[in-house]
C-alpha cells in the first residue's frame, strides 16, 4: 500500500436482516488485517463503536431491508453521506425473509399475530414511542427507498464475493460482478 494514498472510509450498516451478512464479512478472516491497511472502518456494528453515521464515507455496505422508522432515517443519512452505497445481501436487495411479512398486508396484522395471537396467556402489543421504532407497513429493498450503486446478492454473500467486490472499490475501480459465484441469490 502506497503510504501516500489515504485509506478509504468504509462503513457497514445493519438494517432489517439477521446479521448473517456481517458474519460472512468476518469470514474474510486474515484478509481483514489487509483490509485494515486499506480502509478505515468509520461505522459498523461489528468493528466500530461510533453511534452516529459519520459524514464523508467512501463505501458503505448496507445489510438488511428497510423495515421501521429507524431504518428509514438511517438509510437516508447513509445515502446522504456515502459516495458508494452497496446493497449487501438478499435482504437489502429483495427484502428477503423480513419481507415475507409483506404478504400479510401491513404492520398491524404482523404485530397482532406475533404479540397477541401467539402469546402465552397475557400478550401485549409493544408500545414505547421514541424507544421502540414503529414498523413500516412494508419492508422495502434499499433501492426502493434510496438510489443504490452496487448490488452484492446472496444469503449471505460469501466472503469471497465480498472481497471480490471490495478490492476494486478500495482501489478506486469498479467491480464487474457476474456469474453464479458472484451474483446468485440465496
Amino acid at each position, binding site marked *: 500500500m502506497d503510504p501516500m494514498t489515504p485509506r478509504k472510509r468504509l462503513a457497514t450498516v445493519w438494517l432489517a436482516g439477521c446479521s448473517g451478512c456481517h458474519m460472512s464479512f468476518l469470514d474474510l478472516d486474515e484478509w481483514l488485517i489487509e483490509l485494515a491497511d486499506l480502509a478505515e472502518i468509520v461505522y459498523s456494528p461489528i468493528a466500530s463503536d461510533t453511534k452516529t453515521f459519520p459524514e464523508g464515507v467512501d463505501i458503505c455496505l448496507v445489510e438488511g431491508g428497510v423495515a421501521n422508522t429507524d431504518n428509514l432515517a438511517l438509510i437516508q443519512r447513509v445515502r446522504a453521506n456515502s459516495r458508494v452505497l452497496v446493497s449487501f445481501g438478499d435482504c437489502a436487495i429483495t427484502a428477503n425473509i423480513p419481507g415475507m411479512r409483506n404478504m400479510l398486508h401491513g404492520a398491524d396484522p404482523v404485530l397482532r399475530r406475533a404479540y397477541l395471537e401467539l402469546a402465552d396467556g397475557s400478550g401485549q402489543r409493544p408500545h414505547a414511542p421514541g424507544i421502540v421504532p414503529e414498523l413500516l407497513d412494508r419492508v422495502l429493498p434499499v*433501492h*426502493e*427507498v*434510496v*438510489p443504490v450503486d452496487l448490488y452484492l446478492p446472496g444469503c449471505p454473500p460469501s466472503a469471497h464475493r465480498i472481497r471480490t467486490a471490495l478490492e476494486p472499490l478500495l482501489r478506486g475501480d469498479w467491480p464487474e460482478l457476474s456469474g453464479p459465484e458472484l451474483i446468485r441469490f440465496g
Partner: protein
Amino acid sequence: MSLCLRVCTAASCRSRGGEDLRQALAAVAGSSTVVKGVGCLGPCSEGPLLELETASGVGHPERQLFGNLPASDPAALAALARSLRACAENPKAPAPWQPPAGQALDLNHPFFRLQRRLVLKHCGRIDPESITEALAAGIYQQLQRVLEANDPAAVIELVRRSGLRGRGGAGYPTGLKWATVAKMPGHEKVVVCNADEGDPGAFMDRTVLEGDPHTLLEGMAIAAHAVGASRGFIYVRAEYPLAIARLRQAIHQAEQQGWLGTAIAGSRFNFEIALRVGAGAYVCGEETALIQSIEGKRGMPRPRPPYPAEQGVFGLPTLINNVETFANVPALLRLGVEAYGGGTKVFSLTGDVLRTGVIEVPMGTNLRTIVETMGGGAPQGRTIKAVQTGGPSGGCVPAQQLDTPVTYESLQALGTIMGSGGMVVMDDTTNMVDIARFFMAFSREESCGKCVPCRAGTVQLDNLLCRILERRANPADLEQLESLCVMVMDTSLCGLGQSAPKPVLSTLRHFRGDYLAMLSPEATP
C-alpha cells in the same frame, strides 16, 4: 293517410324506456298505421327515438325523427298516442306532426346527411325480428345471386378488388384472407364471425346484431360459399343479451325459410350456423383465443403460425371475420366494386361530444367532420382535447390533428389504429394520464395470464401509472414506464399484450406535458 312508426328498441334507447314507448304506441296501430320496433336509429344521446313515416299516397313518404320522447310517464305516453292517432286519422296532406313532448330532430343535420349507410342500410328501417321484412328489403338476394352463379372464385376476386379490409381493427385485406382459406385443402372448412366486441366505448357490432341480424347471416353464407365452408359459428359476448336473442331468432327463421341449412335456396350449398356465447373475457376477441373458446377450452391465445386459415376451429381451415366485415359483403355485391368505392366505416361516437350515437361514414372522412360537424363538438364552454380510437389497443389523436382522414394508414401514422370503431371524444378537462391508466387497468384485468410480459408487465405498468397519478413518481419512473411499454409491446404473445401499451405511448407522444406536470422530481425511487 298511412303512418309507419318505428321505435328504436336497441340497447341504448331500450335503457331509456324505448320498449315502453313501443308498447304504448302499439295501441295506435290500426289498418293504416304500423308500429314496429327497429334497430338503432342513430343519435343515442337523444333517445328514446321514434321515426314517423307518413304516406299520403302522393309523392314520397315523408320521414320525421323525434327524440327525448316520454317513456315512463303513462299520461305523457297516452297523450303521445292520442296525438299520433289524430294524425293518422287526418285525411288531408299532413302538416308536420309535432309531438306533445320531446323534440323533432332535423334529418338534414350533418349527423344524418353526411352518413353513407351500406352496413346499416336496413338498420332502423326493418323489424329485426321479422325475416319477412328482411326479405322484403332485399336481404338474401345477393346470396341467391351468388348461389345461382355458383362461381366462388369470382366472389373472392370481387372482394379482393374492392379493397375491403377487416373492420375488426387489424385491417387485414379480406379478399386475401378468403382466398387463403379457399385454397386450403380439405372438404371441411369453417366460417367464424367474431362478435366479441369488447373495446370500452365500442358498440358498432351490437348495433348491427340488434338491428339487422339477417344481413350478417347473409354475409356469412356468401363467405362460406366462397371459401367452401359448411359450418359457421358466431361468437358473441354474453353481455349482449338482446343481440343474442335476435341472432338466435334470425338463425331459426333463416333455417325455417331455407336460407341456412341444407340445399340453401335450392342449390347444393349447405351451411349451418351455431351461436357461441362468450363468458366475459376480452381476450376471446383475439382470434386464436376465440377458436379455443369455441372448442370449449380455456380462451387463451396461441402463437401464430399456424394461422386460423390453416388450422382453426377443431383444426379445420377457418375464416374469421368481424361482424361489420361480413355485413359489408351483401352491399358490396349489390353495388359492385365501382359504386361501392372506398366503402364505409361504422363508428360509435361517445364521450365529451354533444351528439353521441352510431354513424356510418365514407372511409376517409375527416375526424373533425365526424366529431365537430356531425357530433356537434365538445359541450358548451369546453374544447376538444383528443379523440381516442381503437380502445385499449389504440391511441389518442390530439385536437390539432383532427383534420386527419379516417383511414387505416393515417391513423397508424398518428400512433393509433382504426380499431373496431369506438370513438371516444375527450374535452380539455381530461387528464390524459387518467385515460392511459384507465386502459392499462383494463388490459391488466383482461390479460389471460399466459405470457409473462402481458401478465406481469401490465400490472407493473398500471402501478407505475398510479404512482404518477398520485404524484409519487420521479423522472426515472417515467423512463421506466416508457421502456417497459416498449418491452411489453415487443414481447407479448398476442395482440392484446402487444397493443396494451399503446394508449400510454400515444398519450406520451402527444400529451407528454400531462405526465410531466404530475411528476415530483424529489420523489424517492
